[in-house]
């Protein structure tokens, strides 16, 4: 676009009182940018002025030096124009009061000794804004090659069927694939189900049959039983899915990564790249590479993963005291099947089980429940105790040994209704032993409340075992992605396909695939049905976003996407490996094959690329690099004791707002620091640090989110990757004879605004202790 620039300096909110506005305007004029001032650009008159400049003078690229871009965003948005907001309010005048940073006296001006730090700060931010707008272009939306709105639902249990109905009832075509021969999943094996709603007191007949019928009758839903996903290639809006029969081996089975034991030789030494490739090819013999598209594959636009869970079977020494090998010690899932078949009988001899013990918490030393459990397993024990009473109302007895009855929320009502039953006995206690006793069992326990040992004769013992996600030992989705067929990092959630984020429960590291139900967490039927609706919404939202050519969460609506200048690619594969969302595949040479619809626009690829060939239209190596270069670095030629110059690259999601809030609270900190907001620290390219230091800046620091297993980075590993890059920069610094300490990274959460003065000032002090950058002035 032909750019016509305009600079607009607001003098309101204390800006005009603190700064020499004419001098600031001169900075713009030197660049050849016309300048206008107004005491309140955000007011009616100010906006009119901007609009008339756009209309009459054809200005289409505006640099507005005023408040933070976080405020008045809507007021300063003009159709067809690019706008840069230079933050001289929160980050300059509000955080650098004249009481601490005095302006120059008349006789101090241009004396080669004194300088005005606040004015210099504003000058630099304006220069940086002007430098940036020269380098950015308006985005053009990415369009997938061929767009398909059909939704694939993996799993035909209660969650999958609910999701299919929800999507179909919203007008979308849906295909449900189910690996077994019939729909219904676990819910088909239940005698009754937990209450689905108010008053949450009574068990109800399973709803699964109604769901199956609704799905089978729905004109927009296709069902394929005995079907699994062999591979899923492509990107949201344009997936090509190869379906197959379970157990079948076909050439479009997705290649699997080498198991760890195969990546080393017989002496345990790691194989080199060539050997690894050879092993990989051998291991995946008969399968075609991920980039080969199955000509017979089915097109889909988005996927709902509802492959569910399998009942855990407690094994091993830690459960030996529970008699797990005895025939009449069963899991809750096994008991459910027994109860479904009719009157409750024990497996060993078919005798009616009139006294049943339910064990909620397995440990002798601890008060935890079995693994992979939750509120649902507490509720299931209560439900199953009720079966005993239904079958044997006169003399049936159910004993529940528990540590904590985890019936949260309105599920408490169900717990209370069960407490009314005089044949159900609940004991908070630790089960110490389950052993045979004649033809029955004897359960010994310590009653925590009464502080004494109890024992119960039982016909049958039921263990409240957990719900293991289908992804525990199978990728299920089988993505034909270079990063592998499975969801990444789900071991953090014990292999549940769960979100790391409390605020955003459907976000994973794979775009366009939304998990719901028992594969995400142990859930009741009620929760699974709700969760299915949520995943269906997200799938539909992803489709519509892809169709509009915009990103989904967290940069939802962003129309930019990474552009690769392939001629200069050295096939180092870093982008393929580091992309948190697996958006980039590569061919056998290592040439990246980006999939923009999988991309979330964090810029991690741009940050990691050593050749700097990856850029966004409005966010690039050059746009940020030019901002860095626009920063004035005074030397001894300018002043006797020139001020230090320090660059702060800050996460725009959390650190930048925190800096704003520091300004709002008038917290002050060094005026020698220049902040540049970046999409995520993962997008930080070390060239910016090198540029800063080689132009004489004295130090660089990064402010980003907490990383590690409990990371807070919205783009998964951004701050972690930045830290690795910063650590590796040491060699480059050494070659410039610069100390490692000139570059640092700090964790800063959004509510840590009160810590900003300390973090900034301490870093500035540490740089001053090192002395100025020897390159200054060259």
């Amino acid at each position: 676009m032909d750019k016509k620039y305009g600079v607009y300096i607001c003098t309101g909110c204390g800006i005009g009182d603190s700064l020499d506005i004419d001098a600031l305007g001169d900075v713009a004029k030197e660049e050849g940018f016309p300048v206008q001032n107004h005491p309140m650009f955000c007011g009616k008159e100010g906006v009119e002025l901007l609009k008339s400049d756009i209309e009459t003078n054809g200005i289409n690229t505006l640099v507005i030096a005023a408040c933070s871009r976080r405020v008045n965003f809507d007021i300063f948005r003009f159709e067809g124009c690019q706008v840069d907001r230079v933050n001289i309010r929160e980050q300059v005048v509000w955080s650098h009061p004249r009481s601490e940073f005095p302006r120059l006296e008349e006789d101090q001006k241009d004396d080669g000794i004194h300088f005005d730090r606040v004015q210099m700060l504003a000058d630099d931010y304006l220069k940086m804004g002007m430098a940036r707008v020269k380098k950015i272009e308006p985005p053009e939306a990415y369009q997938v090659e061929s767009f398909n709105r059909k939704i694939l639902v993996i799993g035909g249990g209660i969650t999958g069927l609910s999701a299919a109905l929800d999507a179909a009832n919203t007008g979308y075509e849906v295909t449900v694939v189910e690996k077994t021969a019939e729909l219904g999943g676990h819910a088909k094996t239940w005698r009754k189900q937990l209450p689905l709603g108010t008053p949450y007191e009574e068990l109800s007949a399973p709803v699964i049959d109604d769901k199956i019928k609704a799905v089978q009758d729905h004109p927009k839903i296709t069902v394929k039983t005995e079907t699994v996903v062999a591979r899923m290639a492509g990107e949201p809006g344009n997936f090509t899915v190869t379906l197959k029969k379970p157990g079948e081996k076909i050439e479009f089975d997705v290649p699997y990564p080498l198991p760890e034991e195969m990546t080393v030789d017989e002496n345990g030494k790691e194989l080199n790249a060539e050997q690894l490739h050879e092993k990989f090819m051998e291991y995946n013999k008969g399968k075609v590479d991920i980039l080969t598209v199955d000509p017979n594959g089915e097109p889909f636009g988005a996927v709902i993963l509802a492959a569910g869970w399998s009942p855990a079977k407690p094994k091993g020494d830690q459960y030996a005291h529970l008699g797990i090998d005895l025939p009449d010690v069963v899991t809750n899932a096994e008991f459910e099947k027994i109860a479904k078949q009719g009157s409750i009988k024990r497996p060993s001899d078919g005798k009616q089980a009139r006294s049943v013990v339910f064990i909620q918490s397995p440990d002798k030393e601890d008060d935890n429940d079995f693994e992979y459990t939750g509120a649902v397993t507490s509720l299931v024990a209560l439900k199953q105790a009720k079966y005993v009473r239904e079958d044997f109302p006169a003399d049936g007895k159910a004993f529940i040994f528990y540590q904590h009855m985890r019936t949260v929320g309105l599920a408490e009502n169900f717990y209370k209704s069960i407490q009314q039953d005089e044949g159900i006995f609940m004991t908070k206690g630790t089960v110490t032993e389950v052993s045979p006793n004649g033809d029955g069992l004897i359960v010994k326990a310590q009653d925590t409340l009464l502080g004494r040992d109890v024992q119960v004769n039982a016909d049958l013992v039921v263990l409240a075992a957990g719900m293991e996600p289908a992804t525990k030992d199978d990728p299920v989705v089988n993505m034909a992605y270079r990063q592998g067929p499975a969801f990444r990092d789900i071991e953090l959630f014990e292999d549940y396909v769960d979100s790391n984020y409390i605020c955003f429960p459907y976000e994973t590291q794979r775009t366009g695939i939304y998990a719901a139900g028992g594969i995400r967490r142990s859930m009741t039927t009620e929760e699974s049905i709700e969760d299915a609706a949520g995943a269906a919404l997200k799938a539909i939202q992803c489709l519509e976003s892809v169709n509009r050519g915009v990103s989904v969460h967290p940069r939802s609506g962003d129309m930019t996407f990474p552009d690769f200048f392939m001629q200069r690619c050295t096939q180092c594969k870093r982008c393929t490996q580091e992309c948190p969302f697996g958006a980039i595949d590569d061919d056998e040479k290592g040439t990246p094959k980006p999939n923009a619809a999988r991309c979330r626009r964090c810029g991690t690829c741009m940050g990691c690329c050593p050749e700097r060939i990856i850029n966004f239209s409005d966010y690039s190596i050059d746009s940020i690099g030019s901002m860095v270069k626009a920063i004035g670095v005074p030397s001894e030629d300018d002043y006797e004791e020139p001020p230090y110059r320090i660059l702060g690259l800050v996460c725009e999601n959390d650190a930048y707002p925190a800096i704003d809030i520091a300004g709002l609270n008038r917290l002050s900190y060094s005026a020698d620091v220049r902040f540049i907001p970046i999409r995520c620290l993962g997008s930080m390219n070390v060239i910016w640090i090198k540029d800063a230091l080689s132009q004489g800046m004295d130090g660089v620091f990064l402010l980003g989110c907490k990383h590690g297993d409990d990371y807070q980075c919205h783009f998964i590993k951004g701050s972690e990757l930045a830290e690795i890059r910063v650590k590796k920069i040491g060699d480059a610094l050494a070659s410039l004879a610069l100390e490692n300490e000139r570059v640092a990274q700090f964790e800063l959460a959004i509510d840590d605004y009160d810590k900003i003065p300390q973090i900034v000032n301490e870093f500035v002090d540490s740089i001053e202790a090192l002395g100025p950058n020897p390159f200054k002035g060259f």
Partner: protein
Amino acid sequence: MTENTALASGSIMVVGGGISGLTTALEAAEVGYEVFLVEKNPYLGGRVAQLNQYFPKLCPPTCGLEINFRRIKDNPRVKVLTLADVEKVDGGPGAYTVTVRLNPRYVNENCTCCGDCTEACQTEIESFFDFGMKKIKGAHLPYELAYPARFIIHSSVKDSPEDAQRVKQACKYDAVDFEMEAKTLELQVGAVVWATGWEPYDAKKIDNLGFGTYPNIITNMMMERMAAPNGPTKGQILRPSDNKGPDSVAFVQCAGSRDENHLPYCSYICCMASLKQATYVRERYPDAKIYIFYIDMRAPGLRYEKFYKKIKEDENIFFIKGKVAEVSDAGSGNITVTAENAVTGEKVHQTVEMVVLATGMQPTAADAKLPADLKVTEDGFVINDFDQGGMFAVGCANKPLDVVSSNQNATGMALKAIQTLASK
């Protein structure tokens, strides 16, 4: 760009701008629907805006709120109305007419957040955001990251002509407008989602737990404000009577919840909240002792169980199974907590410097009847009638939930609302 206009027909109203309402509104808007987000407070964020951290990640809620506010800023399909009360809902699924009353803010769109009005204002009011633990100026910003970023002037400033004059004169931008009056709007929408949230149960109603009698007995929500960096004590945990950092703190679980005389249900979050708050105290006071009195420690699911396990490893945190029966003065501002073992009747006494009542959640609709044809339980939770459709309750308006489940539920209900429009 090919905008898919075929989808978006009619609009959705979301009542309540807390985390559930924000989620429903944004998830629907990002599919392509127009949404009115109606909030009675002068700011969005609701209950979670008052929290210091979320369990179990111990991360700041403002982080997710800021992302959500950015989503609103980037999405012209979401129209936010603050200080807005829904007065009446007429019509049926697909065609509702909603009457919304917009209360005066006394600050217009000229506000630049410069803060001069606060500086000039002399009227002080109790901070409702901080549960009265702090006095604030009548002219103020609701909280630092508030959306919309606009000041509000309390009506008491208007009532004092001198102060009103001072505040008005202090504003250089003509943003103060005491002539502002309530307005009524009528909006046509296809679906209404009720995200009216919850209120902390009034601890004064629990006679035996001493709230209101002993200053050093506080509620869990007050604890959140204390621990928050922008709270009344700037993140310090101090007992109110003498601003001393407590050496010992007792948490009383089920303060009101699971009690037929108060809230018969379990409030879902209080166990996890107390575990989390134990970390607040332990982080600030390495020698402090924590006593948690509970009936059942409800940490459902792997991630919560893991968190509970971590807390149990702390040797200064003690778990006592028993319902607290009474509290009494132990002198010097200290309090003796007496718990009773439900079965044996045996009594446990523990004297501590501060007590936190894990008060439960009461749906907003328990005290204020929602102005629409909705089915509501005795306790005030809105029952969803999916057969009828059109109107849905999400989050804690529907049942007690944690934040994760509220957001799940709120995302799903966005689809239910869309279905109402799509089927028309």
